[in-house]
């Protein structure tokens, strides 16, 4: 019998769940509900839009007519209020109710607004959604100096766009390093040099303590005693899972919605995927992993389970790629692990501004980090996910990550393709 799948959210996890459900159950009913008023998009692309590299229309993730092709409906501008598992219903803001057979929560994350005195009055922009992008793009004209609170990926990417457009840009990060979740001190030092040479003002290891306005300018007080003057303030200090509407539902929420390997929550027929889900990781931990590739994989796993044909989920892996001013950096897996039974090998070249790092455990690659070195990020994801014993190749892999990585990957593919005799 055809089921009704209700998907809350319309981002990467939601769309990949829809596509998975369609591939398994062509006749099931699928409805997506989003609080946005525009076609589906990914927040990941927003900073790039700022730089004007592509037109605004490039943002929409799916072509016109997509939902008709998928035989699905999309309801826009609807926000969730409550979930009632007992009657298998959701309640929207305004009181409207809707029933479901399976429910997927893919509401994503929302920006954390730092509790800083005077922030609201200063008219800051918390950069996350399309309307945030619109308001930032609209207010940039004539604003020479921009301060970005948060030196994570979003903050840094917004800063790149601003620098490219010629704004005097400051970045404030409370940790001692920029991009603290993805790059170690060795890589960060080089990233910092590049940003400084591009004219960015970097303020790390310090926090904004208060915001005030003076003669139309924004004055940012910092915890190290300094202060910063800007014409516009953007915050990107992190994101949190959007789960408030689950308060009385019985669905277990930790930092995110707790799910198993099939994206099932603690309540029957309710699933969660993407930034909102706290799912099993590849290295046996459970946690949030708010990155796009994980959202896609989790959406797929949820869709398969909802349609009645669960598929194995390998677990999320930390990974990221960061492009800045003609250079590329990426990290995969446990790239910051050290001590214990981890073996770490690194090499850096100050002149070439490059950095290389491999992390091994029992001869197997568990993490990698490269900066300004020609290599295929995805191949390193492959090598980690396949748990390949690369002990004999670790030096050559560090020195020629592109060639040796490709060699190890293709050699393993060939081995797996060979019929065992």
């Amino acid at each position: 019998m055809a089921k009704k799948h209700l998907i809350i959210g319309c981002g990467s996890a939601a769309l990949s769940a829809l596509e998975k459900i369609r591939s398994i159950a062509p006749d099931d009913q699928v409805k997506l509900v989003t609080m946005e008023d525009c076609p589906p998009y990914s927040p990941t692309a927003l900073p790039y839009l700022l730089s004007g590299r592509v037109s605004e229309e490039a943002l929409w993730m799916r072509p016109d007519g997509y939902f008709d092709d998928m035989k699905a409906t999309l309801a826009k501008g609807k926000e969730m209020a409550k979930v009632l598992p007992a009657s298998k219903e959701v309640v929207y803001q305004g009181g409207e109710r809707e029933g479901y057979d399976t429910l997927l929560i893919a509401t994503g994350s929302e920006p954390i607004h730092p509790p800083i005195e005077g922030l609201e009055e200063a008219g800051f922009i918390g950069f996350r959604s399309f309307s945030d992008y619109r308001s930032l793009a609209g207010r940039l004209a004539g604003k020479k100096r921009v301060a970005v609170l948060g030196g994570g990926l979003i903050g840094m990417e917004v800063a790149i766009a601003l620098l490219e457009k010629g704004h005097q840009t400051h970045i404030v990060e409370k940790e001692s390093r920029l991009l603290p979740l993805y790059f170690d001190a060795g890589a960060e030092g080089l990233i910092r040099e590049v940003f400084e040479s591009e004219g960015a003002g970097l303020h790390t290891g310090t926090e904004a303590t208060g915001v005030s306005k003076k003669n139309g300018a924004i004055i940012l007080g910092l915890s190290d005693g300094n202060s910063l003057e800007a014409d516009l303030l953007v915050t990107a200090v992190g994101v949190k899972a959007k789960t408030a509407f689950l308060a009385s539902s019985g669905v277990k929420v930790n930092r995110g919605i707790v799910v198993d390997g099939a994206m099932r929550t603690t309540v029957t027929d309710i699933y969660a995927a993407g930034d909102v889900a706290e799912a099993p990781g590849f290295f046996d931990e459970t946690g949030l992993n708010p990155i796009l590739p994980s959202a896609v994989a989790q959406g797929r796993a949820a869709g398969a389970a909802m349609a009645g044909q669960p598929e194995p989920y390998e677990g999320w892996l930390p990974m990221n790629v960061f492009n800045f001013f003609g250079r590329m950096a990426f990290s995969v897996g446990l790239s910051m692990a050290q001590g214990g039974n981890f073996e770490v090998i690194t090499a850096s070249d100050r002149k070439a501004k490059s950095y290389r790092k491999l992390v091994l455990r029992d001869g197997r690659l568990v993490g990698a980090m490269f900066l300004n070195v020609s290599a295929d990020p995805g191949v390193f994801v492959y090598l980690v996910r396949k748990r390949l014993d690369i002990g004999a190749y670790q030096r050559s892999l560090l020195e020629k990550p592109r060639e040796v990585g490709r060699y190890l990957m293709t050699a393993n593919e060939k081995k797996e393709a060979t019929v065992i005799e």
Partner: protein
Amino acid sequence: MNAFYDTLDLKYDACPPDCWACEEACAKARDGGNVLEGGRIKSMHLPELSFNGALTCIQCGVPECQAVCPTGAIVKDRETGTVKIQESKCVGCALCTLACQYAGVYYDQVKKRAFKCDRCDGNPLCVDACPYDVLSYSRNGVLRNHLKYEDSFATGTGLCFGCPAELAVRITSRIIGPEAIIFGSPGCVSILTVGFGTQATTRHPSFMCLLNNTAASMTGVKRYFNKVGRDVKTVAFVGDGATVDIGFQALSGAAERGENIVYICYDNEAYMNTGIQRSGSTSLLAWTNTTPVGKLRRGKETPGKNVPLIMAFHGAPYVATATIGYMDDYAQKLEKALEVKDGLAYIHLLSPCPTGWRSDTDSGIELSKAAVETNYFPLWEADHGKFRMTHDVKKPRPIGDFTHLMGRYSHIEGEVMEELQRSVNERFALIQALCDM
């Protein structure tokens, strides 16, 4: 339907050292000569690991690069199977390079966008540039047109383990369509084309002939249907014994009379069905039970008849050689043969026989390809007198690469090998000369 797309075939580790021809050609034509990062196919040379190869995008069925693209800039063309990046939508986030685990998407630091192989929209420049035979382009897309029919034979088969003739006859059935009348004669494949004992194994209208009269029987059937005003396809799928020896008189006569029939000879180079006795098609120095190898004998002392060439010199409007190792090539030739209206169309299909050739049961395709790559069995066609190679072999492999795969040639080495190589070269030179005319 996401199978049977054209395929850029790449032999994983068969490049010579220090050859960058494919990457250079690609980078030059597509990316302004930026060899280091520009090529959409990558040469790989690791002398310390004695590795030389190349790699590029494999055009995944479900591309992960497409799945993670935050703007939907990457699409897989449903018609061609090519995964493409729409430049106007690429924001340059490089997530695709993180998602592709096969090193198929690259990032241009200058233009700040991702790029990848699009197979030059169906005519890949790297294939032309490859001086060896590492790269080739299979036009398997042509097979997709033939998926609307199931093949019209029963499941299961009484053929030997690993017999490539089964694959050949099943794809033949799809291409000729269920209404074509298929003709068999005593031989291995007749247990599919006609039946076995009292069991029919085909849904085709089928006709079992004698070894000596296949072409004559086809003549009668075709003429009858012509007379009653029905345009039917008549297709023979019979062995080399029934073609080059016992049934040759009937075939030669039908070709000379210009009968409008399609005649496919699957050539396994001996009477395999009756216990591996030599036929007129058995090659020079091959072992069979009637051309033994020992102190006094060294296999067959004479080369096989070049029957496809003989058929071409009958003036038949369409004659071609084919092998199932190049299925796209065979499919295109069979399509042409079916369109012939002004006479006989003849296809000579080399079909390795694991039992009689004393080869591994999983080697049928490998043998088919090796036969072509060593010039032992060149792929050509003669379309109304115009000869043409349909598969160019740029660097022919030594004949030993073919013979070493089989027990029937295990006695061949040294001077005898050279004698066989000379014979292969001579036969190839003849057909090459005809193609150059």
